[in-house]
């Protein structure tokens, strides 16, 4: 199956920066900003909510990259 629908080239450098930023947010020192049991929001301790929140941002970001490359 050829990739006929692809509209734009993969912005490799931008993607690499995006991936590294998300990675750094999960690691210390940046994870230190989220590393606290309190407050408990939406049933999750803040230290877990931080991880889940950035995973959500990562998901949205990946969709944005895909839509940029394939249009729509």
């Amino acid at each position, binding site marked *: 199956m050829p990739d006929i629908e692809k509209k734009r080239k993969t912005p490799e450098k931008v993607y690499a920066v995006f*991936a590294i930023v998300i990675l750094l947010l999960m690691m*210390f020192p940046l994870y230190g900003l989220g*590393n606290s049991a309190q407050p408990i929001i939406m049933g999750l*301790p803040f230290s877990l909510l931080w*991880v889940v929140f950035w995973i*959500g941002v990562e*998901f949205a970001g*990946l*969709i944005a990259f895909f839509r940029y490359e394939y249009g729509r």
Partner: protein
Amino acid sequence: MAEWIIALLMMGGYLVFAFVLGMMAGKGRSFFSISEYAVADRGLGLVVMWFLMGGTIFSAFAFLGGPAWAYSKGAAAFYILAYTALGLLPWYLIGPRMAKLGAARGYFSMGDMLRDRYQSKALVVIVGIVSVLAFIQYLTLQIKGMAYIFNIMTADHIPFWVGALLSYGIVVIYVATSGVRGAAWSDVLQGALMFVVAWSVGLYLVFTLHDGPGAMFAQIAADRPGFLEIGHEGSKMSQTAYSTAILVSVVGFIMWPHLFMKSYTANEKTIKLTVIAYPLFAIFLVPVLFIGFSAVGVIPPTALTTPDGILPYLITNNLGATGLLYGIIGAGALAAAQSSADAITHGASVSFGRDVVYPLKPDLGDRVQILIMRWAVVAIGAVSYYLAIWGAAGLVQLLLGAYGSIVQFAPCVYGAIWWRGARKEGAIAGLVVGVGVNFWYQLVQKGVTPFDINPGIMGLIANVIIFVAVSLMCQSRDEEHVRAFHRT
């Protein structure tokens, strides 16, 4: 009818269904085609690909180990979410590049790519041997998980060796006959089943043992200060250990040859959509961690011989003893272990055939190669089964070391793709030194490293330095094949 017989019948029913599906998947496909066996003729669709890659995460480790980590190590378990969400990120760039190169230059395995780029038999054979040893270790864990589940859910009526033989024997047969397609289609069934089981059990426990997740975490935070944090007083993991464990997973995740070779099973668009789905798989794991957290402060650690027993303990003591429930949970847990075991068994057979045997005897025809791979499934399966049930103390260290060494492939693989200056001498020297350093810290030093850095990262630092330095020393030679590789 005794409850355990109902559970056994349900698990048996599931096994038959998984077996039939796995066998059907390969029907009508060419039995003697390496391309079909190894990479499904480069034509796997999106949904199948999702489950194939997702099934790898939902392994026996996620089902038994995830709750165990949450129960015994608290916030350290968040690392599982982070690495699941991040592990596949590099594949967004590597995968499509590999798919294109693989189709143009006929690759089936990671070793094929390395052999073509570096023109080195030795490198490929080293990679192949380390991979096969690591795969055996990985398989041993899954087989132990299956045997354990069978034994618990049938109230000790099915001994370990029978449970493992039944559940893993089926995997071996459908992988040997149907190749990657067998693994992929049974993963669709297994994936669906384990999602349902993990979520229902996790939420049920949180709402029966506590008044919902908020109340549960508030209680844990009050009783065990630091338990839900990293590196504070009362925490179970230091900040560097946590951070470098995530880092090593992100660098190393796609270096697992069975994941890497999936680049050759699909096109660019499918690969990218698979990467996009991975963060969701991490979110799916949250209720699995809830299972472990729900037991904190409720089940005393003295009630268990090992934290890994927390899920079975909760099921047998807190869910009410009905055979129906045991059967469903048992089937879900078997599905988790099998969906990883099939992909790994398949990957190990391709690594063995393409990366160990073929470079040493390149005059083998396609038919012989494919038979070697299919028989390797049985042989590797038998070895792993033997080790899982009877063990072998002397080998355990070697296997553990290999398991930890997969990440050391990263410099030579990334170098092959993005650095024209990468040379085989550098790749081999870096790999050998990296594996050696990892072995030293992981096994000889028992994981004690400077600043609590992950042993894999220590190996990687040495690996990269040697790889770059030695490659730079070997630049004078003209490397026409390198130019050809990078033109593709």
